């Protein structure tokens, strides 16, 4: 090796896996360039996992797309520099970019279902990663098998012969990750890789990625809105707001000692540490994200910041270096944590009198769907009750029957067995046969306000129609009630003639809530009402739901996969698995334990911001098919605490283990207490 070569290789290895320098990206919308990234500078070191966090619309994905030069047609890099492994990306020709993408960068997207070609067998798609780089076909297949083994797919041979739709979401994402890692990339970009997955599967995939990252020393750019995931996966984190990196540092420094008001606000929005609705409301971040490309002469966060002074609106804060690689772009970074809190007024929640007749009671509810000659047992003997003013939380993985249960209660689906009573009166199974009073008593707030609101109807039309059908109001009376409703959900009057498309996600969900409350319902089903929203908006919506409960004494059936959210709003919690009720009890009891092994696994799957070395238990494998549920206890195939053959042979009955706490497990409560002791389970 000549001296000059030595210098070159030295320089080469000193380069970071990814360097962004003053990166600016604009999108051309309606004939004008709108700035989306405003001078982002960051480095991903070799072998390091770097997290990029921020709410939707902040430019996270744009940054990732700019790195691989896959910006949409109307987007372009308008300034700055991108280099991967010390080599400039922006000056490359089309052909060179192809080589770059084929060899040096891998990207994993949120939805594995659309990342894989549905009409090509998995094996050929994985092998393609090698053939595109000139590896012979036979060898490529062998290397594909190795790649699948690496992501802990137990039977790569059979997976290779399947089509993507024949794999579960978690398995699909493993295949995508296998493809991404197969070429040993200089940089791996993960864009919300687990957002569409269940918490238990997410935990598995994250463990896998963390393990592989450490093993292969891959450099990773990890994009997520979930601070808990970032805390688990990354060493350093950058917080992006309105296209600017407002804070950067090690995960510990940023999450435990945040120095930018936006980071502080973001952390406070998340319901965690066992917070509940009866003591303290959630903090929110006032205002909205600035419009795309809005001119922001001062600090990008000034308009929403409780600490903003005049200087913040006029002068852009320089990056303040705080030591240990911690950087904050805030004029008053030393005061960031004194960001004023929202008034934490405790609400007087309605008292729940369980000696009274429950509002809604369902007994032995069962639902069997017939599909291609198979009987799918979506619900089996589910019984519970909801009292006036109470929130019953419903948790479980997807496919556990949560939504089927909610839709059966509402009358959208007819149950196969069992029945529902409301205020002591039997409800007809079909919605069309229920009385007007029964229809107005049970309402729903859907997960996705985009599809739950008719995009061609105005706010006023949506609300007035609901008032007409549910309260029989029209004319001036309806107008007055409509404004009252809008006021109670904090939807400004100026939106009366707006269409849903003109409202932000949070405002849309407020409108959907207003519609559900048009007929003074007694029980509202909330089907993942905040999972499509950003955390700051989620906090505001949860506050609103709790407020409406305090004012009107409405009961909620609250479905969510986010256990922190469920704990915050719920009085009691029901845990479903494969259509069966596994545990039912007061929220504190279910969360603090001793709990059912399935609940234990769900809780331990949640990545927390506070980290902590708590002993995780993992569920391996997929949720079994409801067409052929396992014998005995349906959970025995995945149970970490399985005691023996009894679990496989006899289905444990749902028994009262202590007052108000029901559980379906062969292990006695005291034994569970012993097994689970010492593991402080603090949910998200």
């Amino acid at each position, binding site marked *: 090796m000549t001296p000059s070569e030595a210098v070159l290789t030295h320089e080469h290895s000193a380069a970071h896996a990814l360097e962004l320098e003053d990166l600016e990206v604009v999108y051309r919308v*309606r004939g004008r360039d709108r700035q989306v990234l405003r001078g982002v500078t960051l480095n991903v070191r070799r072998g390091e996992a770097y997290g990029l966090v921020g709410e939707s619309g902040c430019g996270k994905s744009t940054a990732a797309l700019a790195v691989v030069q896959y910006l949409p047609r109307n987007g372009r890099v308008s300034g700055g520099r991108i280099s991967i492994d010390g080599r400039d990306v922006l000056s490359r020709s089309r052909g060179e970019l192809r080589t770059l993408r084929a060899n040096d960068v891998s990207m994993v997207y949120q939805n594995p279902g659309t990342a894989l070609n549905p009409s090509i067998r998995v094996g050929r798609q994985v092998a393609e990663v090698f053939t595109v780089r000139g590896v012979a076909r036979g060898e490529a297949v062998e290397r594909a098998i190795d790649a699948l083994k690496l992501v802990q797919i137990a039977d790569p041979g059979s997976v290779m012969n399947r089509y993507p739709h024949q794999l579960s979401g978690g398995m699909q994402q493993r295949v995508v990750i296998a493809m991404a890692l197969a070429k040993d990339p200089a940089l791996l970009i993960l864009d919300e890789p687990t957002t569409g997955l269940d918490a238990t599967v997410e935990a598995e995939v994250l463990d896998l990625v963390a393990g592989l990252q450490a093993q292969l020393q891959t450099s990773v750019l990890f994009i997520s809105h979930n601070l808990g995931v970032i805390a688990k996966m990354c060493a350093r984190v950058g917080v992006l707001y309105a296209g600017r990196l407002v804070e950067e540092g090690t995960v510990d420094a940023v999450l435990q000692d945040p120095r930018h008001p936006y980071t502080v606000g973001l952390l406070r929005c998340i319901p965690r540490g066992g917070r509940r609705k009866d003591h303290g409301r959630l903090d929110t971040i006032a205002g909205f994200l600035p419009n795309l490309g809005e001119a922001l002469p001062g600090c990008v966060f000034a308009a929403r910041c409780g600490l903003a002074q005049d200087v913040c609106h006029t002068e852009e804060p320089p990056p303040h270096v705080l030591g240990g690689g911690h950087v904050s772009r805030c004029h008053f970074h030393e005061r960031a944590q004194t960001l004023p809190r929202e008034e934490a007024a405790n609400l007087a929640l309605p008292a729940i009198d369980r000696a009274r007749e429950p509002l809604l009671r369902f007994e032995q509810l069962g639902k069997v769907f017939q599909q291609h000659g198979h009987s799918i047992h979506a619900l089996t003997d589910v019984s519970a009750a909801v009292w006036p003013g109470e929130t019953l939380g419903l948790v479980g993985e997807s496919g556990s029957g949560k939504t089927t249960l909610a839709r059966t209660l*509402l009358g*959208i689906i007819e149950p196969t067995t069992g029945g529902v009573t409301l205020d002591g009166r039997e409800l007809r199974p079909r*919605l069309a046969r229920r009385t*007007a009073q029964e*229809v*107005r008593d*049970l*309402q*729903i707030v*859907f997960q*996705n306000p985009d*599809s*739950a*609101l*008719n*995009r*061609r*109807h*105005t706010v006023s039309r949506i609300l007035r*129609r*609901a008032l007409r*059908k*549910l309260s029989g109001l029209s004319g001036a009376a309806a*107008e007055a009630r409509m*404004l009252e409703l809008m006021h109670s959900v904090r939807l*400004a*009057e*100026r*939106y*009366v*003639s*707006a*269409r849903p*498309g*003109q409202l932000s996600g949070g405002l849309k969900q407020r409108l959907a809530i207003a*519609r559900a409350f*048009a*007929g003074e319902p007694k029980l509202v089903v909330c089907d993942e009402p905040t999972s499509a929203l950003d955390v700051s908006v989620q906090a505001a919506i949860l506050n609103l739901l709790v407020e409406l409960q305090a004012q009107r004494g409405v009961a909620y059936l609250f479905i969510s996969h986010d256990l922190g959210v469920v704990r915050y709003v719920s009085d009691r919690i029901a845990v479903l698995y494969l259509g069966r009720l596994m545990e039912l009890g007061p929220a504190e009891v279910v969360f603090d334990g001793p709990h059912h092994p399935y609940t234990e696994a769900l809780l331990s799957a949640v990545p927390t911001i506070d980290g902590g070395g708590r002993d995780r238990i993992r569920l391996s494998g997929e949720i079994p098919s409801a067409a052929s549920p396992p014998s005995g206890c349906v959970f025995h195939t995945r149970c970490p605490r399985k005691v023996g053959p009894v679990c496989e042979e006899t289905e444990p009955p749902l028994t009262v283990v202590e007052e108000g706490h029901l559980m379906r497990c062969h292990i006695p409560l005291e034994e569970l207490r012993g097994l689970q002791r010492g593991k402080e389970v603090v949910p998200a």
Partner: protein
Amino acid sequence: MAASLTAAQPSRSEASLARLETVLQLLRSKTFIAGNVVVLWWIFWALTGSRFTPHDPLAQNPLEILKGPGAGHWFGTDQAGRDVLSRVLAGARDTLEVAPLATLIGVVGGTTIGLVMGYFGGLVDEGLGRVIDAFLALPLIVIAVTALVAVGHSKWTLIVVIGAVFSPIIGRTVRAAVLGERQLEYVQAAKLRGEKPPYIMFVEILPNVVGPIIVEGTVRLGYAIFAVAGLTFLGFGVQPPAPDWSLQISDNYALLNASNYEWTVLFPGLAIASVVVAVNLIADGLQQVLDR
């Protein structure tokens, strides 16, 4: 009350801004503009009839039979000595009357069929689907000729028959769009406040599938012009001596065998082609903007 109305102003203007945006996008589309220029040109001649044509389209002149295109008659004259240019210009009327009305009937019928099939699904969808399949298995001209022979041919039966034949075709497109909408939760929300099916179909779902319906309608208009031309050529449409384009072709095409009097057929043929192409250009422009 007054306060709420004034407060409503900003968002109302936002709504109209969005509409303006769509219009502007259409105006920026070259295909849309080009199509409209041609169609407006023909609409002008359809409305004015023979008022501005250089000659009377019906006036026969035995002295100038089958003159080639030249100074006096730019497009030449036909076998009765009538000015071809004037007849082509005046001939726009019949086609532009029959084809849009027939398409309108097809759109109304098709929308209803599509909404019913898409919304109810199941047996209704299956049953109607089979009927439509059987219907579409026959060539359009065969169905139309049979119907026109059965009820007797006039302009109105032509309109109704073409409209009826188009309904199931448009219905299919609408059904596909409705199936997508039916999955959305606003339909469930409507059921959960006790709405009846007709309200959900026509008030909730219909406004959301207007885009595809407009596009499909415009595409069908092109086919309708073909259908009118074809049926008229066969003698089931407009009757002589009206200066209709396809009538001119059927009157004169026999001459093509005898000698080179191609202008008598060429110019009406070009006129038909120009309208069909223009309508399709408009459809393309609409599709790019509305079918996002």
